[in-house]
């Protein structure tokens, strides 16, 4: 049984890179879109809170609580993104592993057949 190691390594490099980049690009686009949406919503909320305060519908203490609450909400959103990024990393890891197994498996089968 002979295996062309140079070719195998090249296939692994190309296959793994393609798989990883494709998954990462899809996730990055989604994460950016989520972040932009959250920033826009937060800006709108701050404007609304200030409006409520200036029209005396909420007190200064309530304004402070709403702003601090918004900050904590931002923290929750950041944690969601961090968690989803970890999930995505695991998906990419699984894809790489499957690609690796597939490429090596094919190479071994070819070598055995040859």
């Amino acid at each position, binding site marked *: 049984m002979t295996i062309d190691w140079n070719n195998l390594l090249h296939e*692994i490099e190309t296959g793994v890179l393609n798989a990883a980049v494709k998954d990462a690009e899809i996730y990055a686009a989604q994460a950016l879109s989520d972040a932009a949406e959250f920033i826009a919503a937060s800006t709108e*909320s701050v404007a609304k809170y200030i409006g*409520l305060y200036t029209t005396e519908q909420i*007190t200064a203490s309530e304004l402070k609580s709403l702003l*601090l*609450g918004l900050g904590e909400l931002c923290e929750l*959103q950041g*944690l969601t993104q961090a968690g989803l990024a*970890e999930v995505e990393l*695991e998906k990419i890891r699984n894809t790489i592993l499957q690609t690796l197994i597939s490429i090596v498996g094919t190479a071994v089968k070819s070598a055995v057949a040859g």
Partner: protein
Amino acid sequence: MKRLVIASFASVLLVGCALVSKFDQNSYNAAQGLQQASLALMGQRLVSIPTNDIITLQAQLQAAVAYEQGKLPANKIPALQWQVLTATNGDLLGGFLTDWMNNKPCSPAYLTEKENQINAGFAEIMRLEGGLLK
């Protein structure tokens, strides 16, 4: 040497597995149920202080936090989210319930906005839980 490279690469991939916890239907259901219960209770904020109901909800929230912490270390991020939402010295649900128990006054407009924030907080917890691998 090449075999060693491939073996090392595969090892790194295998060792790196299970960094995050898997989807947990109990966690998702708890977040959904507590979201509904919290918002329903908050609706009474301008009318009365239903002390027993608040204490019951606080106990349920503590149980949910303990459940998430029980899944550490892999469940670090969801557990942290629950802590932020329920912190009694914070400005989301935990802090709101503390203020209520202390009979701190509250305007209708503030209540509406705080309900929106707490609703969004639970939504973030469910978004992450729902995104975990099954």
